[in-house]
């Protein structure tokens, strides 16, 4: 997994790419979020557009990130979830937890 970070209207957009599969990915994602919180940025959009696949450990990383943001009074939302990943969210019922968007502008506006 690689993480690319952008900021837009006070919202952080994290573009993940590659495979999200636990292991080292976990610490990298958590430390990115911690840094954002430290900077006072509490609204985060995670784009999965360039993610090939996610395994269940990868889901754990997203869940942990979701909880981290919530616990600090912020929010983590998803952008561009592929069909393949969407169906993993469905079977694990996580689509009831994560808000997700196809359009970035809409995702950014949803915070205001």
């Amino acid at each position, binding site marked *: 997994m690689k993480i690319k970070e952008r900021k837009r209207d006070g919202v952080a957009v994290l573009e993940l790419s590659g495979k999200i*599969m636990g292991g080292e990915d976990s610490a990298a994602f958590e430390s990115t979020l911690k840094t954002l919180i430290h900077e006072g940025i509490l609204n985060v959009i995670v784009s999965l557009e360039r993610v090939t*696949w996610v*395994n*269940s450990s990868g889901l754990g990383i997203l869940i942990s990130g979701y909880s981290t943001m919530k616990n600090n009074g912020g929010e983590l939302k998803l952008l561009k979830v592929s*069909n393949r990943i969407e169906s993993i969210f469905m079977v*694990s019922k996580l689509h009831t937890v994560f808000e997700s968007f196809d359009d970035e502008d809409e995702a950014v506006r949803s915070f205001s």
Partner: protein
Amino acid sequence: MKPRIELKIPSQLVFLGVPDAVLMELAGDMPFDRKQIDELSTSVIEACTNAMEHGNQLREDRQVEIHFDFAEDEIEVSVFDQGPGFDFSCWRPPQDIMAERGRGILIMREFTDDLEFGHAPDGRFRARLRKRFHNGR
């Protein structure tokens, strides 16, 4: 004779993409529905993740072996590890929706038509996943 492909990978997460790449390559030449191939491949990745982590304890001297058996309308995938295995009959679906782990077997069960765990004749632990395919993509 039904074609079989065999693959052995080291117990390192970085190699989890290899079985996925193999399935995607073969699926491209077969009349299988894309969504179903995605579901099978996702399940195989879960089985391999467990074989690496729980079975082989991520030890780099232990390999995970994967067999892909192709039939007309079905793919059967077996994943072997060198650990002690576990008792699938005691498995229960996870309760806490926010738990960070514990969804692998749930995903495999939902995404395959037949899921079995047990010891192979040579003593290795085996996860066996079967998925039937309807034609058309």
